[in-house]
């Protein structure tokens, strides 16, 4: 029989330490839905998604009940919509509406893929889609948008960087009476992964199978609880070992849930995304893990080192527990979704500059950061360019999800509710960089040798 301590440990992880499977995300290819008539194309999309994902939510709930593991989100990612716009032309927002209708019909809480991949330049449909993003996000509730503006192989498309700075501001403005929620559903990527199950950046890459199921695991609370039990003089390498062991257990659970769900849905299993994704629930915070390692407040000197070790140990533990790992895999640092990050921001310890350094060593990037409403589009483009440069040079994914809080200033807060949490407006450097941004063009891809 299984060891009693192990059984009690698992139950405690779920009940007291917020262990959960963060998301099961079904990736659906829409390439076979493309039609020169946009209305026909929308009809095919509706039929395909509502057929393939018909049982997604029900199967998720069934597994939750049988295995006693909460599966927080059931989601869908689709082929970047710009590819369908390329064929059909017309108003891309029509696609956003049909995706919204699908999300409501199958009961998922987000659908991602209102996206364009423009790292090297815009093809047919790309510019139209990017231009339409603010409107699409304002007119829908569950649709998420993303744009990939750079990669290690292609460099950074500065035309797109300039455009997306303006679009982020516009997305906020169009939803200013709803806590600027539009911008919270828009991610600008460098090196976007094609099999990411996490929102708002999920889309179904063109190299993926027709339908596939990805799982995103979580569990910052469990890692923190494990570290809390460790003595204060335990060397860092032993802390790393503890994290590895915990990550192994969390990932095994995710792998099991993924296998089960893919079997019951009759859909091939894709990847497990080995991530530590915080939620606003107290205790379920990545910042608290860093503080548990010995920092007074997240953002203190030493934070980047702790995060680098955490991120690496999570991957090392997780890789052995899963047969296929992918997506973003690493620790997430979305400010508004993490109770510890919110506190650290309020205290003024966690700044945008520190967060930028942190993004160089963990997955994703500047995530869910609320900036003053008067921040200019070119400053936001500057932030995107800097973040993309970090990703491009280090061959990793970086992203920017900033929310300009229209009409608000430092000291005010935005309240998104639910998993998106709430965020204090962060003071940022407003120095003008518009001449550089307006140069546009592209930043050439970096050299892949002579690395120093």
């Amino acid at each position: 029989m299984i060891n009693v301590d192990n059984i009690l440990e698992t139950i405690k992880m779920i009940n007291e330490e917020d262990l959960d499977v963060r998301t099961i995300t079904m990736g659906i290819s829409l390439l076979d839905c493309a039609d020169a008539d946009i209305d026909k194309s929308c009809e095919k999309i509706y039929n395909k998604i509502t057929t393939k994902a018909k049982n997604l939510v029900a199967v998720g709930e069934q597994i939750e009940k049988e295995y006693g593991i909460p599966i927080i989100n059931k989601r869908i990612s689709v082929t970047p919509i710009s590819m369908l716009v390329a064929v059909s032309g017309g108003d891309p927002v029509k696609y956003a509406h049909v995706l919204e209708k699908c999300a409501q019909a199958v009961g998922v809480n987000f659908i991602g893929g209102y996206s364009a991949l423009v790292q090297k330049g815009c093809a047919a449909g790309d510019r139209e889609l990017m231009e339409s993003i603010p409107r699409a996000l304002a007119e829908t509730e569950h649709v998420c948008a993303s744009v990939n503006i750079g990669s290690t192989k292609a460099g950074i498309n500065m035309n797109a960087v300039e455009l997306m700075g303006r679009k982020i501001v516009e997305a906020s403005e169009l939803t200013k009476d709803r806590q600027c929620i539009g911008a919270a559903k828009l991610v600008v990527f460098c090196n976007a992964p094609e099999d990411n199950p996490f929102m708002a950046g999920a889309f179904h890459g063109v190299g993926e199978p027709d339908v596939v199921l990805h799982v995103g695991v979580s569990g910052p609370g469990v890692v923190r609880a494990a570290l809390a039990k460790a003595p204060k003089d335990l060397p860092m390498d032993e802390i790393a070992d503890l994290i590895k062991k915990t990550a192994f257990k969390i990932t095994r659970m995710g792998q099991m849930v993924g296998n089960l769900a893919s079997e019951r849905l009759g859909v091939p299993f894709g990847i497990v995304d080995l991530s530590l994704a915080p939620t606003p629930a107290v205790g379920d915070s990545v910042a608290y893990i860093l503080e548990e390692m010995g920092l007074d407040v997240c953002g203190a000197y030493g934070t980047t080192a702790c995060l680098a070790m955490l991120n690496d140990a999570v991957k090392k533990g997780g890789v052995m527990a899963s047969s296929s790992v992918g997506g973003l895999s690493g620790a997430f640092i979305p400010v508004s979704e993490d109770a510890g990050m919110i506190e650290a921001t309020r205290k003024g310890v966690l700044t945008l500059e520190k967060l930028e350094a942190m993004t160089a060593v963990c997955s994703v990037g500047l995530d869910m950061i609320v900036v003053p409403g008067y921040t200019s589009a070119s400053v936001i483009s500057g932030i995107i360019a800097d973040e993309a440069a970090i990703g491009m040079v280090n061959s990793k994914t970086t992203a920017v999800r900033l929310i300009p809080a229209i009409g608000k200033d430092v000291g005010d807060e935005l309240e998104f509710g639910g998993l998106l949490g709430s965020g204090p407006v962060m003071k940022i450097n407003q120095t003008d960089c518009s001449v550089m941004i307006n140069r546009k063009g592209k930043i050439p891809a970096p050299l892949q040798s002579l690395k120093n």
Partner: protein
Amino acid sequence: MRAVISVVGKDGVGILANVSNKCAEAKANVVDVSQTIMDDMFVMIMLVEVDQLATEFTMFVDDMEAFGKSKGLDIHVMHEDIFKSMHTI
């Protein structure tokens, strides 16, 4: 399929009997039991076979947990595989 029933609560007379009775009513066959006292708390782990259940497994889960609440016990019923996958290589 086998499930693990965990029971944690203040020690008292008849816990084992009560829980086993509920299992018998639902036609869950008990294959192993281990019990101990940890920090003054009664802790019992039961391994049961649930292939012949009189009801749906999910109903059984709800019933057992509600029964636990009525007796002041913390009862969880979970599929055995979750523990196997997390704690064995």
